């Protein structure tokens, strides 16, 4: 089963303000680890470097710990990933 199909099973209440910002200045010196550690596939390698989208984020915090370019905050109250079973 493809990860994209799995991620469709996750309930999100999208916050219109991104809770994660990335500064791609650090990408040049990096091993593109975000492509592998992010369980939601929020980071993608594009023609202009790493592209990031926060909408499918599972709020695990891996990027917070492993990516020096990330500024990470919680989404607005009640927004973001919302597990139905956990």
């Amino acid at each position, binding site marked *: *089963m493809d*990860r994209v199909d*799995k*991620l469709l*099973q*996750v309930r999100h*209440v999208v916050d219109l303000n991104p809770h994660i910002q990335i500064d791609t200045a650090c990408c040049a010196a990096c*091993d593109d*680890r975000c*492509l*592998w*550690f992010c*369980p*939601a*596939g929020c980071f993608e390698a594009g023609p202009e470097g790493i592209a990031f989208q926060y909408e499918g984020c*599972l*709020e*695990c*915090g*891996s990027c*917070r*710990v*492993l990516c020096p370019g990330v500024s*990470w*905050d*919680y*989404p*607005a*109250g*009640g*927004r*973001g*990933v*919302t*597990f*139905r*079973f*956990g």
Partner: protein
Amino acid sequence: MTETCDVLVVGAGPAGTAAALTAARAGLNVVVLERGEYVGAKNLTGGMVLTRVLADLIPDYADRAPLERPVEHQRVMLTDGPRALTLDIGNATFLDPPHNGFTVLRRAFDAWLADEARAAGAVIVTGAVVDDLILERGQVVGVRARLPEGELRASVVVLADGVNSLLAQRAGLRREHRPHDVSLGVKELWRLPAAVIDQRCGLRRGAGAAYAVIGDFLQGIPGGGFLYTNKDSLSVGVVVSPLDLARRQVTADQVLEGFKRIPEIARLTEGGQLVEYGAHLVPEGGYAALPQLSGGGVLVAGDAAGLVVNTGLLLMGMNLALDSGRCAGQAAVAAIRRHDSSAAGLADYERRLGQSVALTAMRAHRRAPALLRRERLFVTYPRLVNDLLADLVTVGAGPKQPFWRLARRRLRGKDALDLAQDAFRGARSL
């Protein structure tokens, strides 16, 4: 306008709720702020909650809590390709009180626990993000929340805001996790009829099993696979080092797919329906990575304090969260009664914790984190064991040799010193 209470808890997981419950029962004015849409919305487990502390907190929990199955069988599986050795640690007494552990799903379990705290008088506010702590003369005196009230003041603030505790960092109590001190858990929930689960897992009706699995599916990445039986679903996942995922250039999901392809796992989930996917970090730095646990006006509990034990067979967090939350609640009550919530007044928390299940378990397994970063543990040994046992149950070409001779051949080329060292370290840390 500023609201005031005795104890303000950030986070309505097991740690925060246990603290709230304890303080509310003592008659204090308690407010819990939870950022999720509902209690449990941000929480994820494998998983099994051990009953020891839960029973202390709520003696009749078994009659009322939304538990899935009492775990009768703990199965350790060593796999290599299609081969699997399963060690079944069965104990039928675990089906009766005092039990040992129950599988749970966190939305239902955490919501129930929060209702217990509400019934004791705590106020639980959901959808409330806490952005910062209010400090006066080095003492935490409240929080700034994304609420109309804005500021909430309290004699004691309990930080139970989970593995990504931004507040414990702001309070200067902990530094950022080091990358090798965290593990990434990814989990799928598969719906299956209860009778099918009973049959496939060889369980009497309603009894539960917990599987902890290591083998070559991990591709050399420190971690493990797990499978827990719920009433009518299976929790299936892996916990792996995110740093090593990047080194090996694989995703946690690819490791999980490999785990599910092991024939012994594939037969359990076959025909099920995927109903949820999730990911969560686990603070696995152990005793050596513990932060400062208290300060002026503030206590840290649960995942926010890094209170997780990985014994290699069992990843224990919820039990430690409940226990540390209870200790935090007790320390807050004692401090408030003495009108002293300074750092000295709250230092009692660490004394209580020092005698608790939580910290004694952390100390007992303090050597495990270093051991569990060794790659050969996850590939070499499962392969070796399966090779040895295959020799026992198969007949190949040529004359059959006695087992000891085959075993000696298998062990040739393995560094005897490594083996002996790992065995010794394993015995000491588990």
